[in-house]
C-alpha cells in the first residue's frame, strides 16, 4: 500500500462517516410529540366529560408511553456510529426530562402552573437540540413554543379579571382549554419539526 492509497482510505472513510453521523432525532420528536398530543386530547375529554379529578394521574401516560416508544426506536435503530452530537443530545434530554418530571410533581403537589413550566423546559431542550444538530426548524419551533407558553399566564390574568368583573366562575371549557393549547404547542414544537427532519433524512 503506498502513501497515496493510504490518504485515499483516510479521506474516504472520514467523509463517509461525517455523512452518517448526522443526528436522527426526528423520530424521537415524533414519538414524544404524538404521545403528548394523544394523552392531552384524552385528558381534555375525560376531564370535561367526567369532571373526576382522579384522571389527572393519566398525565403519567406521557412519560410511560414516551419512554417505551423511545426504547423501541433505539432497539430498531440501524447500525450507525455514535457521535459526540448523539451524546450531547442524550445528555440534554436526560436533564430536561428529569426536570420536567420534577416540575410535574411540583405542579401536582403545590399547584405550580404545570403547562407553562413544561412547555418552557421542553422548549429550551428543543432549542438546544436544534443548535447542537444544526436544525434551524427545530430551533425556531422551540422559540415559538416558548413564546406560545406565555398564553398560559396571559389567559390566567384575563380569566381572573373577567371572573372578578362578572362574579361568575369560568366554565369548564375555559378552565380545560389549557390542555388544548398545550397539545397545539407540542404540535408546533415537536411534531412539525420532527416530520421535517425525517423527511429531509429520507430524501437525502
Amino acid at each position: 500500500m503506498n502513501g497515496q492509497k493510504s490518504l485515499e482510505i483516510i479521506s474516504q472513510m472520514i467523509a463517509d462517516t461525517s455523512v452518517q453521523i448526522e443526528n436522527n432525532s426526528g423520530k424521537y420528536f415524533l414519538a414524544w410529540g404524538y404521545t403528548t398530543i394523544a394523552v392531552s386530547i384524552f385528558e381534555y375529554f375525560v376531564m370535561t366529560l367526567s369532571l373526576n379529578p382522579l384522571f389527572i394521574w393519566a398525565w403519567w401516560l406521557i412519560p410511560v408511553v414516551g419512554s417505551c416508544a423511545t426504547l423501541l426506536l433505539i432497539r430498531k435503530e440501524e447500525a450507525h456510529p455514535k457521535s459526540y452530537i448523539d451524546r450531547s443530545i442524550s445528555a440534554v434530554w436526560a436533564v430536561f426530562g428529569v426536570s420536567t418530571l420534577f416540575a410535574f410533581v411540583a405542579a401536582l403537589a403545590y399547584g405550580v402552573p404545570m403547562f407553562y413550566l413544561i412547555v418552557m423546559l421542553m422548549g429550551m431542550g428543543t432549542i438546544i437540540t436544534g443548535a447542537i444538530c444544526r436544525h434551524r426548524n427545530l430551533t425556531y419551533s422551540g422559540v415559538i413554543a416558548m413564546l406560545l407558553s406565555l398564553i398560559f399566564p396571559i389567559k390566567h390574568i384575563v380569566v381572573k379579571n373577567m371572573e372578578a368583573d362578572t362574579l361568575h366562575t369560568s366554565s369548564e371549557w375555559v378552565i380545560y382549554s389549557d390542555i388544548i393549547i398545550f397539545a397545539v404547542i407540542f404540535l408546533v414544537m415537536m411534531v412539525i419539526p420532527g416530520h421535517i427532519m425525517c423527511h429531509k433524512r429520507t430524501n437525502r
Partner: protein
Amino acid sequence: MLSPLDPLLHSELRLAVISILIGVESADFVYLKERTGATSGNLSVQIDKLCKAGYIDVEKGFVGRKPRTLCKITEQGRIAFKLYVEALKEYINM
C-alpha cells in the same frame, strides 16, 4: 531521514477502521463491516490486533437480545493515527 510508517496502521482494513473511529465516539461492528466492505472474519481479526495494540477499546454487550460489539478509539490510538498521518505527509512531499 523519513519517519517509519506504523506497520499496524499501514494496512488497508486497519487504517479504514481507525479512520472511521477517529471522527466518532464509537461505532459498532456491523457499521464498520458495512463501511469497509470487509468480511466478518477478517474484520474481527484486524479489530483484535488494534485492540491488543491498545489503539481501540472493544465493548461487547447486547441491544435487546441482539449481541453488539462496540469499538472506540483510545488516546494511544489517536496519537498513533496522528503520527501515521505526519509520517505519510513526509512520504508524499518527498
